[in-house]
């Protein structure tokens, strides 16, 4: 990923030795342990989310900002009944000096990861685009998610997918009324916002592979029996630079694979691949419940006086 980061041989060996004895440089004691996920929802705003990985000592390792915005646009000619959706992932100097010379090219990991998240949400219909249609062929909503990396120490893919889905779940677009082909967009003071139609929540998980033997040896050996590689979750930037391959799986709670990618790199036995796919499910279930909880807490805070104003009466009270 990075261009000008130099990792010395000593450091390389140290990190590998640590991984081999299932220790991590940032204090984690297991290869499959993730850092603490923290979701911060900005109060008084919709779909404005900071999402971060915290190290064990409480310092922030990676921090992303996800913001959803919407506008009324003309739909694409091929799909007049559907709204449009766009994700913009931006790595710049803020995330680290190694991203300064970022260019869109086929060989940049950032481009690839950005694409993965975009197609994860688009191709699996996680966002109901038909609900975003106002007048067919003339006016639809365009939903745009901006992902900015504010601090970077690995784990972009997971955080970006969690951040995008949380902000989409949390966002409310302004309500519209259509009268005689005239569209009025109401501000939040006039009418309460409308939630987006999120049909399911896909979350990506990246398994990082580190090779233990020489490449020739690995290709010739039967790796379903022999142990050729180490598999780690949630790599830091240094580990990320040293990894030999990756395996990305995006799942939702309904036991559906939304996306599965093994873009080259170190070959891995088919059995292990299946094993990881099943291993990912409980992790993703946990993250999903964490996400929904954060949104629920925010909702309760926002609606602090809701019970006073509501006409509902407590029939069974007392």
């Amino acid at each position: 990923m990075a261009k000008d980061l130099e990792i010395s041989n000593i450091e390389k060996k140290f990190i590998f030795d640590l991984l081999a004895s299932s220790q991590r440089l940032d204090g984690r004691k297991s290869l499959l342990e993730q850092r603490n996920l923290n979701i911060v929802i900005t109060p008084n705003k919709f779909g404005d989310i900071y999402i971060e990985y915290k190290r064990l000592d409480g310092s922030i390792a990676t921090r992303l900002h996800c913001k959803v915005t919407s506008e009324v646009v003309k739909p694409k000619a091929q799909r007049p009944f559907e709204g449009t959706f766009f994700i913009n992932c931006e790595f710049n100097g803020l995330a680290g000096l190694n991203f300064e010379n970022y260019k869109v090219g086929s060989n940049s990991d950032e481009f690839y990861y950005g694409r993965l998240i975009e197609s994860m949400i688009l191709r699996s219909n996680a966002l109901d685009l038909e609900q975003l249609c106002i007048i067919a062929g003339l006016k639809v909503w365009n939903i745009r998610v901006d992902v900015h990396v504010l601090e970077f120490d690995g784990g972009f893919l997971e955080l970006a997918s969690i951040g995008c889905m949380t902000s989409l779940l949390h966002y409310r677009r302004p309500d519209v009324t259509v009268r005689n082909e005239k569209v009025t967009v109401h501000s939040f003071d006039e009418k309460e916002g409308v939630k987006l139609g999120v049909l399911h929540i896909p979350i990506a998980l990246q398994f990082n592979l580190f090779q233990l033997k020489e490449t020739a040896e690995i290709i010739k050996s039967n790796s379903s029996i022999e142990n050729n590689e180490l598999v780690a979750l949630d790599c830091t930037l240094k580990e990320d630079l040293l990894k030999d391959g990756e395996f990305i799986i995006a799942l939702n709670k309904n036991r559906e694979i939304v996306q599965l990618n093994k873009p080259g790199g170190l070959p891995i036995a088919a059995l292990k691949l299946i094993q990881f796919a099943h291993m990912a499910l409980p992790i993703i279930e946990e993250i999903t419940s964490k996400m929904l909880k954060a949104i629920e807490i925010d909702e309760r805070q926002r609606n602090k006086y809701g019970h006073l104003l509501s006409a509902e009466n407590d029939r069974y009270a007392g």
Partner: protein
Amino acid sequence: MSVSEDSKNLIIPGDILACERDNQTVDIIGQGIYLSFENHLYNNNKLYPTHVGIENYTTKNNKVIATLDYNSKRYIPQQGDYVIATVTNNYSTHFLCTLNNFSSTVTLPYANFPQATKKNRPKYENGDLVYCRVKTVDTDLPAELECMDSETGNKDGFGLLEQEKSKHTAVLDCSLAYARELLFNDKGFPLLSDMVKKNLSFEVAIGVNGKIWISTASLLETLCVYKILSKCEKSNRDSILQIIEETVTEYVKE
């Protein structure tokens, strides 16, 4: 909030240094202080602070040395500094090394090794770490490193930081002020000797470019030393003993 004794002497760029104010002569200037050159317009040699820090005057061999202690992460080579360089490329006459990520490269000529001849040249691989000293710094050329004491021609402990098979080595990146503090300000290395008192046996090499090389017999010990050194960078002096205690019990005596 009361201003402590130290921060009263905090110098920011644009301030007048104490030596300038008192018309005191300074023989050697160190980091953070800039000497304006004599030219036609300003016919005077003046010292200006270029960083935010605390000014410091010491006398050594009847020579007054003025330095400005400041903290930064980016290392700019200065003559006579002991550094840990990473070899990135080798050419017919020299190695190309980096002292910092994203900074310009420096050279390490083969001639700057002890007993260097045309045939006897050191064999370092890319990514190896070398402990060496900055020989010359020029504005037009990349800085030059040396791997010997150029006056005597002795090896003087410079050279490759090796990866022995029985040992576990690691490299820690830290801020420049911390590296300097470990090397110079701590008389007799109290932090490191505190660690030795806890039965941690280790070797260290500290480069003022913010790199600390550690070598111990076992992996967990290396990790322990690594953790202590990186934790102490951000914490108070008083809590050092406690940090050492905690980390040692966490990693070594389980």
